[in-house]
């Protein structure tokens, strides 16, 4: 009898130890884009803090949908683009305000921090801090398309069957700029915006026969550019620079009507369980040497102040080659997207996809 009770005590202690062991292994559930949590940085973070990072890859739309479904639960940290935060926050309340006192703001480029703070301000409180930035523009295979300089070339019959872009809002915005319009100025006027989108949609349908495919996944696009199936695509600068490293013929081109500038951020979901770990990860990722490691791997610009000295020469060369001053000045930064515009754009994109 006594033996039995001793055993059971041992068992209980053992269970308790295992159980608390599980509790001790802290976790950070991160909802982010592909490439934003490189394995080596995740491992380094774990060594430093003991926190395991559980990464889920997604995109802007799916991030919002996922957090909306749970009213902001299930993840400790998300990385939406800065223009997709304020209206979503007003409608669905899926984020919590960010506490800037817990952020090491010396590590962040001041102008970018300020811009994101302003753009994600809801009820007088900021909801995000910047992580990285980049632009959308053209990725061109110079061997076959040496003269492609603007988004309008995406509709050009000359590149018949060799064009690829995403059926997503950046394409609509880009084509509107190429048509000489300023879609951002029409954000506030639903009617004008709808009329503009209809016009862009019609042009896209007319040029649909020249399209090879509407790409949906970055890897698939890289593969079709690499294999020479696509000569001209609308994509992110990082994707173009990745390809440039493999094949010097392919490069990113900042379009004449302006590359579209985005900033991806850190935002904390409303019902995050491990907020402390979220702040730790933010500060860790923006530390100059870590931010530089990310940029060296993924080629996207960083919001980290002082990361420049750690960048590879080839990465710095990318920016210098593709973004001389006049192109930088011409970048069109996304302002926050008001509600309702998404359904107008969605309908236009549906029409384009359905057209025969």
């Amino acid at each position, binding site marked *: 009898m006594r033996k039995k009770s001793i055993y059971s005590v041992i068992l209980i202690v053992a269970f308790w130890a295992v159980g608390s062991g599980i509790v001790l292994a802290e976790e950070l559930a991160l909802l982010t884009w592909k490439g934003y949590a490189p394995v080596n940085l995740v491992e380094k973070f774990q060594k430093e803090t003991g926190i395991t990072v559980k990464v889920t890859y997604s995109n802007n*739309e*799916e991030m*919002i*949908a996922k957090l*909306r479904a749970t009213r902001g639960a299930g993840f400790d940290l998300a990385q939406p683009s800065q223009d997709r935060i304020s209206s*979503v926050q*007003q*409608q669905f309340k899926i984020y919590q305000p960010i506490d800037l006192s817990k952020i090491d703001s010396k590590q962040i480029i001041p102008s970018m921090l300020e811009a994101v703070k302003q753009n994600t301000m809801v009820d007088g409180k900021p909801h995000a801090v910047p992580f990285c930035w980049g632009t959308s523009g053209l990725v061109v295979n110079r061997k076959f398309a040496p003269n492609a300089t603007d988004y309008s070339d995406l509709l050009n019959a000359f590149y018949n*069957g060799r064009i690829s872009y995403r059926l*997503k809002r950046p394409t609509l915005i880009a084509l509107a700029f190429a048509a000489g319009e300023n879609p951002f100025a029409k954000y506030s006027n639903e009617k004008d915006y709808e009329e503009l989108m209809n016009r862009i949609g019609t042009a896209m349908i007319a040029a*649909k026969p020249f*399209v*090879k*495919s*509407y790409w*949906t996944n970055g890897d698939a696009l890289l593969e079709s550019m690499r*294999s*020479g*199936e696509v000569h001209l695509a609308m994509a992110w600068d990082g994707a173009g620079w990745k390809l440039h490293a493999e094949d010097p013929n392919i490069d990113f081109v900042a379009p004449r009507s302006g590359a579209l500038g985005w900033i991806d951020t850190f935002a904390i979901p409303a019902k995050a369980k491990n907020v402390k770990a979220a702040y730790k990860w933010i500060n860790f990722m923006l530390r100059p040497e870590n931010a530089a490691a990310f940029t060296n791997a993924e080629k996207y610009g960083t919001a980290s102040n002082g990361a420049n000295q750690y960048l590879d020469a080839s990465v710095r060369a990318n920016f210098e080659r593709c973004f001389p001053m006049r192109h930088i000045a011409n970048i069109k930064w996304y302002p926050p997207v008001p*509600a*309702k515009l*998404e*359904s107008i*754009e*969605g*309908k236009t*994109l*549906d*029409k384009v*996809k*359905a*057209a*025969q």
Partner: protein
Amino acid sequence: MDKNGMHDRLRWGLLLFLTPVFLWLVLLIVLPQIDLLIMSFRVESGYGDSSWSLYNYRQFFEEPIYWLTFVRTAVYSVLVTFLTFVVALPVAFYITKVVHPRFQGFLTVLLLLPFWVSELVRVYGWMILLRESGVINHFLLRMGLLQQPVEMLYQDATMIMGLVYTSMLFMVVPLISALESLDNSLIEAAYDLGANMGSILYKIIIPHATPGIVSGSIVVFMLTLGNYLTPNLMGGKNSLWFTEQIYNQFIASFNWNQGSAFGFLLLFLSSVIVWLGLKLTRQNLRKVVQ
């Protein structure tokens, strides 16, 4: 008395075992469905406030792209179902009637084999084979049959082939079980009486296998109609499938109300099509399910 007690205990036992299933069904399937149904009848105006309306359903009938997409999806699904049947019947007949019984199990396992990997992997396999710089083009160029690589991916025909491939199994299995009960002597007698292949097929095999054909067709039709992956990945630029429309409403447009309305329309309209199919072939759902 004793018997009654046993009955009671049985009932409690049954209840105990059914509770998890019941909870699962109600909490994870019935309640969310009801939530979606309610959502589909509401329209959001601006920030957070919403009202009852049939607007979401009206949208489907008033916007040609929506119902045209549905019609397209339904027509292609019927076509896929028919093609699957045409491909599956000889296979099922071969396995049940022609091949030596010893190999029957082996052949069935061979049919099952591709289904041990996920649909996504299978579709990517097809993409590697069919793309412009893919395996098939490579060989055709090597053999000199082609001068220029041809894009075989991103076409409706490719998508239909992919869908037929994906749903083959669900047609073959019911056909095998239907054909197993067919008496070989009927076919032999028909031959003795001078019937040819065609009349044997139409007068003996198909009538006998009808319940299997119908149940297989229902499964294949519903699976194809509700497929998202294959049309999306293999179909390319023109292949707007109705499920993708639902996805777009939920994810891209943030319009969950419209998305759920589409979801219920898909459920309702596909049920109508199945019901019509049963009526046209004069089949009884109860008999088919058996």
